């Protein structure tokens, strides 16, 4: 098969180990995960990209989100009714993004969380943090597994059930005019698998004989498919009722957040289902209907290019060539051993494609992508070192753009993610060149200033109990040039120009820090250095 042959070169490093520079390794690592430690840089240089990826694929997860919550007593049943509070959901995910080991898996899960979206914003009722932790754990645990398994877990996840209404979805009822809820049926097609338009394997739209795009499905397909997702509700079998004196109804324990939703056959529609060319006969048991429906979506030829292109956009570039998308889609279709949907093959293809690894072309003024605010904060935190004094990681929803970061993980405003993969910023040279720049959807007059203001505080003083250590830099904090060189490699893969480094170093030198300066002065200087690097357009656009 031609596709197989083509997917092979993508699995090899285009720069032989040994000839790779530190900057090459850092560039790769800053895409594959949040940061580029010296150890990782050395490993990649010594053994190559593929070996590093294999090592990541084989490495275990750090502490799960659910375990972290429990270890920090967020399962406590107390009079303040913390079981209704969402805040620990933010602490949990910030801890995962900023501090847990197994960075590549977490980076991949973060990319997946922007494709399969649920948001803490509307999650209410008992234990919102556990709902979100179980969701996050599903993505992190499945990040190196198979897309088909992930799709089923996503479909039956308790939080997804709340977010897109599969929980409590009832079969039709002629007497009351009730119809099945269509929300999940629609979005699982539009956003989680096949998209709205038939695609070529390279991600471009297929056209009919008259040159018009071809819809993947219509309203009838959705109305039909919605029957498959009826009859589900949270599985309460392991969940216990606890009687408490301060409310007149029991508190329930949080197991239902983790367990997949459960089918009640009596509430499941037994009507026949016909969608996207597949027919599920009337009276098919719910479990079988679900399998057929998800298999149909999984085997649709759109999934590879639809999913693959978005993963390239999340990790490498806003504007991959059709050939790059085709190679990633081919890896999705067949991992080389005949397996469809192997996510390890997708990450390999995305991260080691020749187009990704080709040297930055200074003449290409549209290369790369804008780093989104969460990735900026994560790269800084993991690079300079972070310490939670209490271990509680009290970091809140940072979505506001006027006085916070302007983005917060697992806090998308809707199922359409923080920004759209097809976003074009109007009135820009990017639009003029007919290119995309999804992350620019978050960039505006308010967020430009709000981000810098947020940084100014956080990079010096931290956020509540979470403080930067600057351990890797303290020994040479009196040496502006060395500081800038070090930050340039570790945060920007040497993509800050000599002019920019010079500008920053000169400004830092005015602080006149010496080896004998007090710690506070050194930290002042290091924070100033980070403020300048993290604000620099050459850092913000990751190439």
């Amino acid at each position, binding site marked *: 098969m031609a596709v197989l042959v083509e997917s092979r070169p993508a699995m090899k490093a285009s720069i032989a180990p040994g000839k790779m520079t530190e900057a090459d390794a850092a560039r790769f690592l800053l895409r594959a995960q949040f940061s580029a430690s010296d150890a990782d840089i050395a490993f990649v240089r010594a053994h190559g990209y593929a070996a590093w990826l294999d090592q990541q694929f084989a490495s275990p997860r750090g502490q799960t989100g659910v375990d972290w919550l429990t270890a920090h007593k967020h399962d406590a049943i107390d009079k303040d009714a913390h079981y209704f509070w969402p805040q620990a959901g933010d602490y949990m995910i910030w801890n995962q993004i900023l501090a847990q080991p197994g960075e590549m898996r977490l980076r991949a899960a973060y990319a997946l969380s922007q494709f399969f979206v649920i948001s803490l914003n509307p999650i209410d009722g008992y234990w919102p943090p556990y709902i979100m932790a179980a969701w996050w754990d599903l993505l992190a645990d499945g990040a190196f597994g198979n897309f088909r398994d992930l799709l089923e877990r996503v479909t039956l996840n308790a939080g997804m059930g709340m977010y897109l*209404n599969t929980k*409590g*979805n*009832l079969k039709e009822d002629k007497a*009351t*005019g*009730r*119809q*099945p809820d*269509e*929300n999940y049926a*629609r979005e699982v097609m*539009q956003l989680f698998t096949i998209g709205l338009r038939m695609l070529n394997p390279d991600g471009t739209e297929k056209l009919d004989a*008259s040159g018009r795009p071809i819809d993947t499905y219509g*309203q009838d397909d959705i109305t039909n498919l919605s029957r498959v997702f009826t009859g589900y509700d949270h599985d309460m079998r392991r969940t216990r009722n606890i009687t408490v004196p301060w409310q007149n109804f029991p508190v329930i324990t949080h197991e239902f957040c983790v367990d997949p939703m459960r089918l009640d056959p009596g509430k499941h529609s037994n009507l026949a289902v016909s969608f996207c060319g597949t027919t599920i006969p009337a009276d098919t048991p719910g479990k079988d209907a679900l399998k057929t429906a998800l298999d149909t979506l999984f085997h649709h030829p759109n999934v590879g290019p639809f999913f693959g292109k978005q993963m390239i956009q999340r990790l490498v570039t806003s504007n991959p060539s059709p050939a790059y998308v085709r190679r990633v889609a081919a890896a999705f279709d067949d991992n080389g051993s005949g397996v469809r949907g192997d996510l390890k093959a997708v990450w390999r293809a995305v991260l080691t494609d020749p187009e990704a690894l080709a040297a930055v072309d200074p003449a290409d*003024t*549209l290369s*790369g*992508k*804008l780093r989104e605010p969460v990735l900026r904060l994560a790269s800084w935190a993991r690079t300079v070192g972070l310490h939670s004094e209490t271990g509680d990681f009290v970091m809140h929803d940072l979505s506001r*753009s006027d006085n916070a970061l302007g983005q917060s993980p697992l806090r998308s*405003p*809707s199922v*359409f993610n923080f920004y*759209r993969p*097809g*976003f*074009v*910023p*109007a*009135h*820009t*040279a*990017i639009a003029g*060149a007919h290119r995309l*720049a999804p992350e*620019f959807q978050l*960039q*505006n*007059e*308010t967020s*430009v*200033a*709000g981000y*810098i*203001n947020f940084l*100014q505080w956080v990079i*010096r003083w931290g956020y509540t109990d979470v403080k930067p250590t600057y351990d890797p830099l303290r020994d040479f904090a009196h040496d502006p040039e060395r500081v800038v060189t070090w930050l340039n490699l570790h945060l920007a893969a040497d993509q800050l120009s000599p002019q920019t480094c010079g*500008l*920053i170093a000169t400004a830092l030198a*005015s602080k006149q820090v010496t080896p004998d300066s007090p710690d506070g002065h050194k*930290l*002042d200087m290091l924070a*100033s250095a980070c*403020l*300048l690097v993290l604000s620099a*357009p*050459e850092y*913000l*656009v990751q190439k």
Partner: protein
Amino acid sequence: MSGPYLHKDISRRTLLARAGQLGFLGAGAPLAMNLASAAEAAAVGADDYRALVCVFLYGGNDHGNTLVPYDPVNHSRYLGIRGGVAFQRKDLDKTALTPIRAQTLTDDLHYAFAPYCPRLKVLFDGGKLAPLLNVGSLITPLTLAQYKSSNRALYPTPPKLFSHNDQQCTWQAMGSEGSTVGWGGRLGDLALAGNDHALLTCISASGNAVFVSGNKALQYQISPSGAIAVKPFKEPEYGSPAISEALHQLITQPRQHAMENELTILARRSIEMEGIVNGALDKVTLQTNFDTVPGPNSLADQFKIVARLIGARKELGAKRQVFFVSLDGFDQHSNLVAKHSELMGKVDEALAAFYVATVEMGVQRQVTAFTASDFGRTLANNGDGSDHGWGSHHYVVGGAVHGGHYYGTAPHVSVDTDDQVGQGRLLPSTSIDQYAATLARWFGVPDSEIATVLPNIGNFDRTPLGFV
């Protein structure tokens, strides 16, 4: 919730309880008084200024439970179709609407606003709010038979119907996702030259919105707290003047890489406009209370900054402005009754406060607010919510509005008549283009230019709809 908030809430609750003793108009009473004084205020400040404010309800507002069939016959049809998410008729008694002059609608329909929209009723009663019935995205007028026809060349339908992101974009820009020019922006293109600051022609108080992006007009984005200054320029804290200066250079110097360069353009714009905008806002005094109901209301916060910007219009030399505000969360597939109450209650509070603010500033005849949303929803219910639809009802509010009267064609309360395409998804009888063209004419766009703002308007009856 922290102490001060709680304190504020309690005091507001007390006030509200007192107002409640005055009977139903408790919540609406100050508004009614403002309506009474509107006429005299309008005579005062008649400068050449006009503003349109698009109020976008993200997620697809459930029109069926916003403007509800109230007469016994139609209400009972509604009850039969909506099941568990329906209002009982008695719940609607206080918000039932009687047009200012007699008007006969389809099937002798009478409507009521949802019980949680008492202020919208007051605005309707006072002639300041006009509902436009069953408006939605169309390329040409369409019958049900034409919709069902497979001849899309002859009977085109808007692309990607029922899809949130695409229909949001269609409402804002007459094109699906990826469009870069909205019709509010095109209005701005025509108005730019009359304003001292071209950048303050099209303004979003709600993040990125293609509606306010024109061919020439840029969208200026402002936060509810005003323009945001880059703090390290003013307070270097642990930095130093040299650090601040380097920061300024880094973020503003033009760059060769296009994405990097766009960041610097945006930074320069942000920095330059912050001084101008906040300087002008500082001089505005606005007494109107935008917080008349306990609890946060992000839409009211956005309306307030829009009102303050309008208050600064002379200082800023603005003659024509297009604003965008929005509220999220209308995709109520479940828990419709509770969630819709919460969200439409916010719309009710915010729109009414905004109208009062325009009266306070004497510009109520020069400012028109109108609602828009992804789509309407099914009339059929799915147990405790509704699904994506097409046509919807929308509302136009302002002193220039010929309110207290319905516009457009009322749809049957039905899931099987020829004005719907299944489960009560309305086949629009009025197009967004007609809605927009009517607003555009009021804004001052000459007939000859309407088609440049709304390219498909030629496919429809071009007679203005008359609501403003």
